[in-house]
């Protein structure tokens, strides 16, 4: 037999640093994951209870398209494992819920059973969701800017400046320093007068701070009456959550106004809007009234782009319908887009009254309604609203 030879190649740190050859494939894989999330976004938005969660929070997103398919055996295939201690036929190793009793992680060697889940932060998800969505109308109008607010802001010190901004403390300190230096050099004798020099004078420097303020406002109006059961509230909140995330992700300077209403409307905070439950009857007009009031007070239509969205189950008191219609028309006049989403979980539209009929009378072309029947509808209807805005121009 030939003598066995061997070679050792020592570790080379610089090689190791250069040798991350999986980098490109990893990148490609990430791109695919992202794409996959984008394709399944409607399901993810529908499935995940993502509402009201913080941006940094990690959510698990099941990925379907990224599996590597092969011909494999299905579930009726038995496997073999190694046991610990006594085992009996019929003993359950692991329940379907996935709660292992310290038993098989993956028993046997079944190839390709490829359960895949990826973690993304909510912010990332939102970013992916809205990658190809825009509120183009907002952009095209270039948002009439409010007169920029001039605020003066302290910014460092200068040796020249307005007398009034002279910083006396620093000026004196500077003189003291100079005198000590002079004494050390013995250039002067004690008691001699030591005047201020021009270099000692220190002025506070101010710079004007330009504060950009765009003038678009989004009104989120939600029915919180007793007829809005958990499911309906969930759908409405999902919708507004998307809207809220969208506006926040795309337009930093857009203002949001949250209005919750039953028989009367209230302006609420974001926190309250997404988390608080209410009950009572429904006067839809109250919300529109409130919105109009707020517009009057703070967002004059000649200065502001106004977007209003309202979600309700449409179960309004009949007596209120006329007022609601009138106010809705008014709201259409002041706003760029007014969207009404009616939440009717499957089936309920056959026995509950609906505002959709009534609102059909509104002729304004910036008014748009959608029907949300189940959670899968949230995303498409959201897109429909935005698309509507785009078509109109």
């Amino acid at each position: 037999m030939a003598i066995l030879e061997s070679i050792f190649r020592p570790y080379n740190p610089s090689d190791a640093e250069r040798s991350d050859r999986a980098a490109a494939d990893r990148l490609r894989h990430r791109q695919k994951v992202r794409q996959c999330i984008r394709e399944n976004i409607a399901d993810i938005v529908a499935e995940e209870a993502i509402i009201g969660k913080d941006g940094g929070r990690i959510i698990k997103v099941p990925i379907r398209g990224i599996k590597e398919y092969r011909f494999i055996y299905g579930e009726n295939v038995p496997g073999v494992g190694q046991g610990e201690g006594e085992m009996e036929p019929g003993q359950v190793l692991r329940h379907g819920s996935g709660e292992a009793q310290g038993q098989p992680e993956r028993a046997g060697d079944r190839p390709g059973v490829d359960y895949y889940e990826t973690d993304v932060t909510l912010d990332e998800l939102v970013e992916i969701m809205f990658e190809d969505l825009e509120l183009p109308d907002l952009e095209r109008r270039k948002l009439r800017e409010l007169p920029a607010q001039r605020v003066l802001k302290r910014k460092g010190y200068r040796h020249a400046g307005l007398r009034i901004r002279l910083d006396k403390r620093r000026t004196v300190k500077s003189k003291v320093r100079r005198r000590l230096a002079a004494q050390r050099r013995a250039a002067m004798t004690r008691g001699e007068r030591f005047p201020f020099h021009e270099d000692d004078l220190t002025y506070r420097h101010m710079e004007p701070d330009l504060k950009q303020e765009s003038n678009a406002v989004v009104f989120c109006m939600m029915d919180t009456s007793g007829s809005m059961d958990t499911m309906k509230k969930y759908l409405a909140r999902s919708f507004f959550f998307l809207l809220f995330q969208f506006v926040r992700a795309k337009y930093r300077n857009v203002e949001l106004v949250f209005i919750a209403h039953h028989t009367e409307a209230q302006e609420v905070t974001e926190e309250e809007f997404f988390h608080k439950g209410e009950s009572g009857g429904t006067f839809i007009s109250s919300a529109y009234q409130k919105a109009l009031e707020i517009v009057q007070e703070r967002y004059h239509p000649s200065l502001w782009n106004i977007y209003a969205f309202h979600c309700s189950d449409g179960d309004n008191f009949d007596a209120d319908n006329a007022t609601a219609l009138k106010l809705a028309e008014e709201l259409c006049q002041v706003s760029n887009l007014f969207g009404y989403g009616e939440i009717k979980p499957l089936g309920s539209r056959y026995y509950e009254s609906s505002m959709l009929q009534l609102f059909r009378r509104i002729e304004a072309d910036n008014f748009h309604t959608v029907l949300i029947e189940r959670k899968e509808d949230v995303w498409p209807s959201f897109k429909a609203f935005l698309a509507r805005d785009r078509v109109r121009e």
Partner: protein
Amino acid sequence: MQTYDLAQLIEWDQRIREKVAEFGLDCFPQEFEICDHNQMLGYMAYAGMPSHYPHWSYGKAYEKLKTLYDHGVSGLPYEMVINSNPALAYLMRDNTLSLQILTIAHVYAHNDFFKNNFTFQTTRPEFVIGAMKSHGQRVRSYIESPSIGIDRVERVLDAAHALSLQCRRNLALRKLSVEEQRQRKLEDAQPREDPFARVHKRQQSETPDLHKVPLEPEEDLLLFLRDHNPFLDEWERDLLTIVHEEAQYFVPQIETKIMNEGWATFWHKRILESLNLPQDLHLEFLVRHNQVVRPIAGSLNPYHIGWKIWEDIYRRYEEPDVEEEDQLESGVRSGFDKIFSVRAADRDASFLRRHLTERLVRELNLFEYRVRGGDWVVTEVADQEGWRKIKETLIRSVGMNTVPVIKVEDADFGHHRTLLLVHEHDGRDLHLEYAEKTLAYVYQLWGRDVALQTVVNGRKVLLQFGDRGFTTRQLTR
């Protein structure tokens, strides 16, 4: 912290090689490369190949490994050996000296196995590094070519990867050429020779259909698609070839996982015990060895199973008990003699069939389980009746037996160039979602309708994939 220097490794390697020669292991020349854990992750993701073509699935593999590693779910292997000539092995830099010694011994046994086991005889280890490199270059050139680009290359690779293991399993059997298949068909069609031809009625001989494609059911799915779809571009054919060749290269490793790991474990133990290690190194070696062969409850540890079987074979030929004595193969002089011949002539399935005894099934505490309604239920335990079933199930879940046998039956099914595949059903149904998605890949590469005949819940079913998407049809008969 590194507790040794290279000179020490080389010195120990020298002593190990002496032992390797003494024991009669027969190895390729060996190259060791010291790497850090990041490099190791990289090598693992690419099945150890120093150069490999790019594909996102390797990025996925890397991420998975890294996540598991970072969260401490799984450690990294101590080594990785490539079946090449010279054999290439990676050693983890951060391992202790004792672990390195164990690993080096382990590597030589793998090396010997690659060189001598019959399944590896077709892998051409002297060319593999170069071949992988050339594959990588070709794939990259297609990706970079402005007329092809990454998206199209990926589409073909995705499909090819899905089908790569639908290939021949026993590569030691030569594949017949079309001409030989035709010859065989003609011969088969000849009437049998009949000594009483005079008194018998004349036999009818049927003319065989020599125009059928394929003549005999074809197992190499990718090659068949490559050769029989005229609308594939040259670069697409090349990609199919590349993926096929690589799969063929890895089939022997899939087929001998338990044997190979068991063999290496058997020998690293023997070699290290013969080295007269200083006490501290020896103690650590014992701890490490026990970690390697620790049974994983509920799962299978190929190191443990393989090692136990090898030890048992060796023991039976060295010191058999009364019952075993009669069953020994005659003419075998020693335990070593026996295991060397087994290492050359078996693969996991035959290894288990021949050498996994009732006693071992009990000793290893093997059991069979099934998934029922989402629960994992023990169905057989190692008792007098159960052990045979467990053994059968185990044999079916090793090596290529985990991959359904699917052959091309007809390229002109129903006379409209539908590709008919037949699944050789052995009691195990296909995973239908996966079958549907994979069939879509066959459709993509074939360019026309495809159909797969299989059995679902005891009924013969034809799964079809075509322009109108996926359909299933019950077959009567």
